[in-house]
């Protein structure tokens, strides 16, 4: 199944790579090889430098406030900074687990909402002709162009009016998730639609001939074929929630509902003079590593989506 899509999706990419492998035997002269290798190593060094710096700070066992020199792996490297930051990342009495739970909650809500609503709408846009289609597609595109922050003020004031007992929608994780979804949903619709457009219609036509209605086709043909784009869109929704900052920072006031990104801001912002950089580094790694690993796994799908979507405009 997946193989089929890959070929259907990136036919331009698939053939030349195969052809190139057979022709890649032309030798470079030694001097050229050395010069190009040095250039590549220089680029590698600039790419790796900030990453290695963070890792080495996080492993520093001295529990000092700031690093005074550059060393790849500090002598006596330890994971103490990770332990400290897991126990109490900020000045507030909130554990890393609590922060991570809040971020996870937002991330899952955004991810699920945007994918479920997104794929339904994308299917209609990709496969059906109906009055108002062009207008609605432009409406979605126009919103996609706006930065998420563009509706911060009205979302803040409107959500603040929704108060049930002690629950205020603005001052809640659900409210933040809703606000982020507003930016994420148009992206989900557009991204999934771009992918559905590349699935050949023959499969659906065969199912329709067999008597399947629109819903049956969606459930038994489209849905199974869309696994890669669902994974990618869900991941981007998750990422938006996991690293969300501006809505949570302006909406949430209770330290118990702080998120990872808000704690990170506390570690570098105005009042960061007392933050040990080893702890900041450990925290940054704990936030970045899980999503970086998933990104690397999904990389193939993300990039083929980028190039195909890009060429189509």
């Amino acid at each position: 199944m997946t193989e089929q899509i890959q070929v259907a999706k990136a036919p331009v990419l698939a053939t030349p790579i195969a052809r190139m492998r057979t022709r890649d035997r032309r030798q470079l002269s030694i001097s050229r090889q050395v010069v190009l290798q040095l250039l590549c190593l220089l680029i590698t060094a600039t790419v790796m430098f900030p990453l290695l710096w963070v890792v080495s700070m996080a492993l520093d066992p001295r529990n000092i406030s700031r690093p005074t020199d550059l060393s790849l792996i500090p002598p006596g490297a330890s994971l103490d900074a990770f332990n400290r930051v897991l126990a109490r990342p900020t000045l507030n009495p909130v554990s890393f687990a609590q922060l991570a739970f809040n971020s996870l909650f937002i991330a899952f809500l955004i991810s699920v909402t945007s994918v479920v609503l997104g794929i339904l709408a994308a299917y209609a846009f990709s496969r059906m002709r109906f009055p108002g289609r062009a207008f609605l597609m432009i409406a979605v595109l126009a919103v996609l162009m706006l930065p998420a922050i563009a509706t911060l003020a009205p979302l803040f004031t409107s959500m603040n009016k929704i108060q049930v007992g002690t629950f205020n929608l603005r001052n809640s994780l659900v409210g933040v998730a809703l606000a982020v979804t507003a930016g994420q949903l148009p992206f989900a619709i557009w991204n999934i639609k771009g992918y559905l457009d590349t699935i050949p219609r023959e499969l659906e036509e065969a199912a329709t001939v067999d008597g399947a209605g629109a819903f049956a086709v969606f459930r038994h043909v489209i849905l199974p074929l869309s696994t890669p784009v669902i994974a990618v869109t869900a991941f981007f929704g998750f990422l938006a929630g996991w690293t969300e900052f501006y809505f949570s920072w302006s909406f949430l006031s209770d330290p118990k509902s702080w998120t990872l990104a808000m704690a990170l801001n506390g570690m570098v912002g105005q009042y960061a003079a007392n933050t040990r950089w080893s702890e900041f580094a450990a925290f940054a790694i704990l936030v970045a590593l899980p999503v970086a690993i998933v990104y690397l796994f999904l990389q193939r799908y993300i990039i083929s989506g980028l190039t195909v979507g890009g060429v189509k405009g």
Partner: protein
Amino acid sequence: MTAIATVRAATPRRPGIWQRTRKTRTAYLFLLPALLVMAIITFYPLVFQVWMSFTDYGLTNLKSTAPPPNLVGFTNYQRILNNNIVLPNFDFVRILVFNLWWALSNVVIHVVLGVAIALLLNVEGLKAKRFYRAIFILPVVIPPIIVATVWKNMFDPQYGAVNLLFNGTIGALFKLPPVTLDWINQPNPIFQAGPFILPLAYFALLAANSWLGWPLNSVVATGALQSVPKDLYEAAEMDGAGWWAQFKTVTLPFLRPAMLPYAIYGFVITFNLFYLSYFMSGGGPFGQTELLVTVGYRLVAEQHLYGVAAAFAVFQFFILLTITIVTNRLGKATAAADA
């Protein structure tokens, strides 16, 4: 017999309205959940925002029991254009000029670096290509908020890795006194011409965003490069075309259709890039690295001037609309030149 035939022939031609709209109804059934949610959290706020922009909506109007704000006409718009809002160092024209230059300079660097490195990794016979490709994707997978906060500390005058690296290598080699250059807060601009001001912090932001931005451009360029038939290079070589002529006549026509939409996309993304400006420089020094998005954010989160913020967002909307129209025209014009 005849009567039945006419009826039969007529029925499929004139189905009831319920029958005829079946497809439309199905389509809207699929769209309904998304449209409902977007109506509430996107379209309603957008319309409400326009109304808000004509009011003095502030902290006192927040509570659900609070009185509605007063209508003030175009006052908020005038205040923004006259730089008469509480935000320190606010200068609308200066920020807009800087914002445009910020997006343009970044995209040019991203595309040039991205294409150059894609070409480098496309050289036939280069060893360890796969290793380099795997390393060069790493900046893409780190969340931007992490990149921004890490680079902020990297540019710290005393303990930052950038100054330490310089002192440890070139400084040590030539026995220079330790450099404690304050990249972010150095007050004297490097370049100034009217409202166009580039402080040192801009170059620090540029460095960080270049690190972040070129790899994805390189990936897109690599995809395009691999679609160039090798025979074309051989043919060009036989015609005696040098390296540059080959690039111009063979490579570039294949690169352009892939890179151009991506560059436009990159321009809009960079134009609205919140994290680097907010976390690395905090908009400083003197608000000189502030972007429209960070100003809009400060108006809500720090100043609580919701009415002014709404008017500011309306300005932002029209600026982005103009950018979209102009870049689309440019994209089409160059596409036509290709054909």
